[in-house]
């Protein structure tokens, strides 16, 4: 390697150092501390019991608790609901919004706003709409003959209510990415298809969608990570209730740590969920690599 290239690489390595050091310090210390907590009987509600080392009993308790399992299931249920609807809606709206008609640019811009709102505010406005007895959503539903729904008060509806709010906020993200991808597609194959007379449905299904697949996978992956962590919206709308109908992982951890004050258990649950999400990510990446390798062959 030339002198210049060598020097470049060394300096580039130095460029990398601050980020690594800072991230290391700011994440490793809290992580280590949390790890320490997870092996201890750290219960703030019982200040007189010594905080002793209890081995893996916190982990055992979490893994065997039905509440944790329920939280996991609820989290995945919510993820499935929101991701699937966001995907379909996002792609559909993107198709609409990339038509070459006047005003579409403004529409695309306006539709980006929900994404940029604080999740807490999103929760608040939907709370306003869902508010028992007074919220406007039930009023408008009533206008078309639907009887009022206890959005956040009924166990059957609570998770859906949250899903709706989350879908409202994040569909624009999928739409934006899909719209950008659609606009980057080469137009010539579409002319050829038009010439040959392929139906519009065929063109969408066989020409557009396959080309969108990599982008959609990418977008969904990002959204899945965030969906797993979801907290603010639920905190505002239902705080995990009614009962535990909307208690997702992050709320389970919150309840253990800040309602029951059992920090050790909360920490153990945190690590377990971290491991779960890491496993999912690794699985995801491995299968991506596998499918890429198969395509190349």
């Amino acid at each position, binding site marked *: 390697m030339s002198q210049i290239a060598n020097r*470049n*690489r060394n*300096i*580039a*390595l130095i*460029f*990398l150092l*601050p*980020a*690594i050091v*800072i*991230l290391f310090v*700011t*994440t490793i*210390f809290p992580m280590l*501390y*949390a790890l320490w907590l997870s092996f201890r009987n750290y219960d703030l509600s019982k200040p007189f019991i010594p905080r002793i080392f209890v081995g893996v009993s916190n982990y055992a308790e979490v893994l065997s608790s039905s509440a944790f399992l329920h939280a996991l299931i609820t989290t995945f249920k919510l993820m499935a609901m929101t991701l699937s609807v966001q995907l379909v809606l996002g792609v559909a709206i993107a198709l*609409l*919004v990339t*038509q070459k*008609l006047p005003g579409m640019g403004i529409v*695309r*811009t306006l539709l*980006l*706003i*929900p994404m*940029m*709102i*604080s*999740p807490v505010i*999103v929760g*608040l*406005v939907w*709370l*306003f*709409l869902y*508010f028992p007895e007074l919220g*406007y959503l039930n*009023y408008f539903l009533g206008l078309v003959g639907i009887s009022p729904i206890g959005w956040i008060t009924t166990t059957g509806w609570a998770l859906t209510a949250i899903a709706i709010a989350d879908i*409202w906020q994040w569909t624009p*993200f999928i739409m*934006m*990415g899909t719209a*950008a991808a659609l606009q*980057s597609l080469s137009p010539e194959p579409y002319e050829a298809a038009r010439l040959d007379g392929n139906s519009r449905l065929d063109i969408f299904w066989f020409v557009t969608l396959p080309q969108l697949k*990599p982008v959609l996978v990418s*977008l969904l992956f990002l959204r899945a*990570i965030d969906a797993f962590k979801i*907290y*603010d919206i639920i*905190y*505002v709308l239902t705080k995990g209730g009614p009962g535990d109908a909307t208690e997702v992982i*992050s709320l389970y951890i919150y309840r253990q*740590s800040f309602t029951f004050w059992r*920090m050790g258990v909360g*920490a153990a649950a*945190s*690590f377990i969920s971290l491991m779960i999400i*890491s496993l999912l*990510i690794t699985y995801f990446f491995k299968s991506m690599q596998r499918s890429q390798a198969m395509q190349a062959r």
Partner: protein
Amino acid sequence: MTASAREKTLIYLLIALVLIVFMVPIYLILASSLKQPVDMFSQPPKFIFTPTLQNYYDLFTMRPFHLQILNSLIVALGSTAFSLVVGSLAAYAISRIKNKWINEVSFWILSMRMFPPITVVVPYYIIFKTVGLLDTPLALIIVYSTFNIPLTVWLMKGFFDEVPAALEEAAQVDGHGVIATFFWVTLPLTAPGLAVAAVFCFIFSWNEFLFALMLTGSKAQTVTVAVMSFWSSDAVQWGRIMAGSFIVLIPGMIFVLTCQRWLVKGLTMGSVKG
């Protein structure tokens, strides 16, 4: 394809529907913030009402809201500036160095985004309490940077990839050092990326709630926490909440309306082959 008039009408109709769904809640925030309590939940909803600025007035008198806005600004700007510097340097390194360790490092950095925040709240609380940084903007700046730095790296890497190495080599052949080349040649070419990263770092910090709630008290409280504080154990003070919400909403809206093109470009760099 020349769409028929009927198709065009259908498309516009659907778009109108979509716009209504996505814009009405935002309108609600603004409208409700200007309503008197009696109009807040009137059924049928009142589109014409006597507006009042009382809620906004209350916002600033019942809470030191201007101070809280200042706190949010300090934290957001601080974290943004810090993360931009650290993050773009790292992104540059990741873009230019090609060996397998780099991929591991880059993956590790990006995985920082994947932590559920709730998992580190307690440790951060205890650590900051120990070093006496509780209830200070600095605490939040540090915490937000663990998210903003990876975000910046993710956004900027794509922009750095687009700057041809040939340009840097030309500058170096002329005798400029690596650092000078970086500042005078490479970085200016990635200015749009920096702008995008800045916007997203700012918005994330401005919008954040959980850490702000847990790590601040009365002195360093941010706007999101302040808005939620109007929700006392029995009553939700909707007017003031909506007023505060609208103010929290403003930076996001401004950025979207002014920088839309850049934002889309930055976000889709990673996913879409431009």
